[in-house]
């Protein structure tokens, strides 16, 4: 439990909730990152605010990392990506590409990720989002168990 950080987690979570609240009450939009990101292609009229949001997200992460370096990213910054399980013999780039493809494809056809279904969908009491959340958390937990990646 040494890595358990409930206070910064709750503070960060509240900021994420506030971000979603601002976008919803201001612009009537769901702060679902896969949706904001995925609908850059093909470019629509909404491409401008989507790019502004994503650029600001990067800036927000960068700015807080400069203001509060002590929070750290797992104590080391920059955060490292996690290599594939050694016994599987899969080259790290291949592992990353497969993971990225699955996440991009899955969130597109499933219409959402941790933010859109997880934060916004559950807050809207959407049954669809509840199903999605249970499935992706369940499958992710099974995946981590099977691969033994941690």
């Amino acid at each position, binding site marked *: 439990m040494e890595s358990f950080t409930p206070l910064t987690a709750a503070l960060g*979570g509240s900021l994420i909730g506030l971000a979603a609240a601002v976008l919803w009450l201001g612009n009537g939009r769901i702060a679902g990152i896969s949706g904001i990101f995925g609908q850059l292609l093909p470019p629509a009229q909404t491409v401008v605010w989507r790019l502004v949001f994503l650029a600001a997200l990067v800036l927000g992460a960068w700015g807080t990392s400069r203001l509060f370096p002590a929070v750290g990213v797992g104590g080391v910054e920059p955060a490292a990506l996690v290599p594939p399980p050694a016994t599987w013999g899969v080259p790290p780039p291949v592992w990353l590409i497969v993971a990225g493809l699955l*996440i991009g494809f899955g969130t597109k056809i499933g219409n959402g990720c941790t933010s859109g279904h997880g934060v916004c969908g559950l807050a809207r009491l959407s049954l669809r989002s509840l199903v999605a959340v249970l499935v992706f958390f369940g499958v992710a937990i099974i995946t981590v168990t099977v691969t033994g990646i*941690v």
Partner: protein
Amino acid sequence: MAVLRPPYLATAALSGLLFGAGLYVSQMVDPLKVLRFLDFTAIPSGGWDPSLAFVIVPAILVMFIAVRIGRGRSAPLFDKEFHEPEYKRIDTRLVGGAALFGIGWGMSGICPGPAIALIAFPPDGVWLFLAALVVGSYAGSLIVPSGHAKRLVDAK
């Protein structure tokens, strides 16, 4: 055009800033920390990190209040309507998509928000990962019906 007015874009910027700050402060930009939550095999030994639950629950609560406030209003501040998600059906695409996302998330510990936030302090391999994310998302868009009317027909 509402979506190009300064207050609208400023709102998008403020939301993005808060989101990125929240991801950093909560350390959800750290893939290993996310994987340590997903690793339920560590529960018996006491090595499990429940932090992610302490991130998502307050986030949902804050947004829940905002949704309640929104229900009492006819429109958001800077647009003509709330863009409620149109899909209602629980179908194979939803469940299959969520399952594929779950596999990728469990392999990497990176969901789309942190994937973007990591650009702020890019670790080795993150650009390759993001490129794959774009390609995967584009591939998905080829099988999802496009266009508002078609989507709505499909959603019911």
